[in-house]
């Protein structure tokens, strides 16, 4: 039995698997259920300041290789999220990462100010959702200056409210130079990164009707097909910044998770695997990691982080 515990920005996680943002909702009940199924940590669905309507259905489709989604970040708003977060924190079974989103920089600040006053573990700044572009324009994570401004402002307010609360920036693969964005965010005060958000957006067409299947027409691509890209970009950002990383993108097996960690991730985000392997995928992935460690004489998972050879 290897030691599966990892430390991320000073916070201890029982194992590296964390629920990725956007999967399994915004209710305390759902998060607790995910922890019961083996997750080492939880990332909430992105929280808006005001109630926000998502896209009509279909919002999610899958093939064996990828998932395409444009849910459009529906949320009941900060007040409702605070009550769900409160309910989870009252018996916190695993660390909580709260994902926040906004159309404008000020919105991010307003949410961060209030979330920072709760006993949450990490704030994840979602500046990279590719599915609300028609509403808000190009995601901040695709433009260096925008990414820098949001990071600096969120970090400043969080520092004021709760100096020990780490701010993690969720990065987009849909940019010319993710390393440049990451280093800019690091300079602006980011404590770590989560990457990658979904790729694209992509388009799926139904042949009979010649219609795009998703109501939003286009949607972010996730799932097994994007894993090699995620592993590569995690490694790029790891080498450039040395900051803690939540590696996310197509991880469905223990081997995938180990690969992500060798690329430089400390935590591993799990999303579409909930579909591909069931809600207990967190336990399955962790068990598979443990088996590999035992076979390969790895005593602690922390030994393998960033160990990919050059």
């Amino acid at each position, binding site marked *: 039995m290897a030691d599966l515990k990892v430390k991320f920005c000073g916070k201890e996680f029982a194992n590296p698997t964390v629920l990725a943002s956007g999967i*399994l909702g*915004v209710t305390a*009940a759902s998060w*607790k*259920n995910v922890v019961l199924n083996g997750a080492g940590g939880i990332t909430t669905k992105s929280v808006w300041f005001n109630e926000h309507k998502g896209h009509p*259905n279909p919002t*999610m489709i899958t093939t*064996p290789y990828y998932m395409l989604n444009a*849910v459009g970040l529906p949320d009941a708003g900060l007040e409702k999220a605070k009550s769900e977060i409160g309910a989870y924190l009252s018996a916190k079974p695993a660390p909580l990462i709260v994902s926040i989103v906004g159309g404008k920089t000020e919105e991010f600040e307003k949410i961060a100010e209030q979330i920072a006053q709760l006993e949450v573990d990490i704030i994840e700044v979602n500046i990279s959702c590719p599915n609300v572009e028609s509403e808000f324009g190009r995601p901040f994570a695709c433009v260096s200056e925008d990414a820098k401004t949001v990071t600096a402002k969120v970090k400043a307010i969080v520092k004021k409210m709760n100096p020990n609360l780490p701010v993690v920036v969720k990065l987009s693969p849909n940019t010319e130079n993710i390393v440049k964005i990451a280093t800019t965010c690091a300079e602006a005060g980011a404590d770590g990164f989560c990457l990658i958000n979904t790729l694209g957006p992509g388009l799926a067409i139904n042949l009979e009707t010649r219609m795009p299947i998703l109501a939003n027409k286009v949607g972010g691509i996730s799932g097994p097909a994007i894993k090699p890209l995620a592993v590569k970009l995690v490694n790029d950002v790891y080498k450039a910044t040395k900051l803690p990383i939540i590696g996310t993108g197509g991880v469905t097996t223990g081997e995938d998770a180990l690969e992500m960690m060798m690329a430089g991730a400390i935590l591993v985000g799990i999303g579409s695997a909930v579909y591909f392997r069931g809600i207990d995928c967190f336990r399955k992935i962790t068990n598979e990691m443990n088996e590999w460690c035992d076979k390969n004489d790895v005593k602690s998972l922390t030994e393998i982080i960033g160990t990919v050879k050059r």
Partner: protein
Amino acid sequence: MTHENLTEMPVVLKIKKIKEETPVIKTFYFDYSLNSRPGQFVMLWLPGVDEKPISISGDSGDEFALTICSRGDTTKKMAELKVGDQLGVRGPYGTSFHFEQDENIALIAGGYGAAPLYYTAVEASKLGCKIDFIISAHEKENLVFLDRIEQVKNLTLHVATHDGSVGIKGRGTTILEKLVNEKEIHRIMTCGPEMMMKTAADIGDSKNINTQVSVERYMKCGFGICGQCVLDPMGIRSCVSGPVMNSKVLKMLDDFGNYSRDENGNKIYFNNPTKK
């Protein structure tokens, strides 16, 4: 690790036949082997508009039926469709009603909840079950599937309307209560308004009868990943652990008979739908 069959894409089908049940309820028939079980649902896609979870109201193996009540923008647009028009279908999804050979079962439907329970009655009858089918509605015009329900073998039909226009005047649950006191019922299955199902579940539980309830919640993906339809306080996903759930499980839930959630996750209380 393989996941060859894990594809959730709509299959586009032409409507083969339409039966107008009432001015607001229609049944669409499709030629397609859906391989469903009674109680399951599909996600029905109206291209360019929206996609909604719809219960299956019949499946003969090579043909299946969906019964749709026009009550929102999407279902109203679906109701305007003609024979030959196209709809997309994903599924079947979710749990189904469970019964075994030669059992006595009581089915209690409210309004167009009769549609999936009709399908259940057809399948239970094939297994030799003796069926008491209770159907209730506000008035005669809202009773659907009566003609087909009456044709099912080994079935006794009980009708209740709130205005007394057909059958007894009153509630279907009153008939259920009488039935469970008079004879041996092995299972109760219910589909309809949640408060009616809550009463039916209480009756079943009081007699320790296996009671199965079809729980309706707002759904997005239908395959257990988006988290839209999770129930408090256990985080059970109603699209994969439901829609058909045992009353003993529902008793442990805060939501059942109390509130559901809207598309953004706000709680909507049954006794006060305007309060958020």
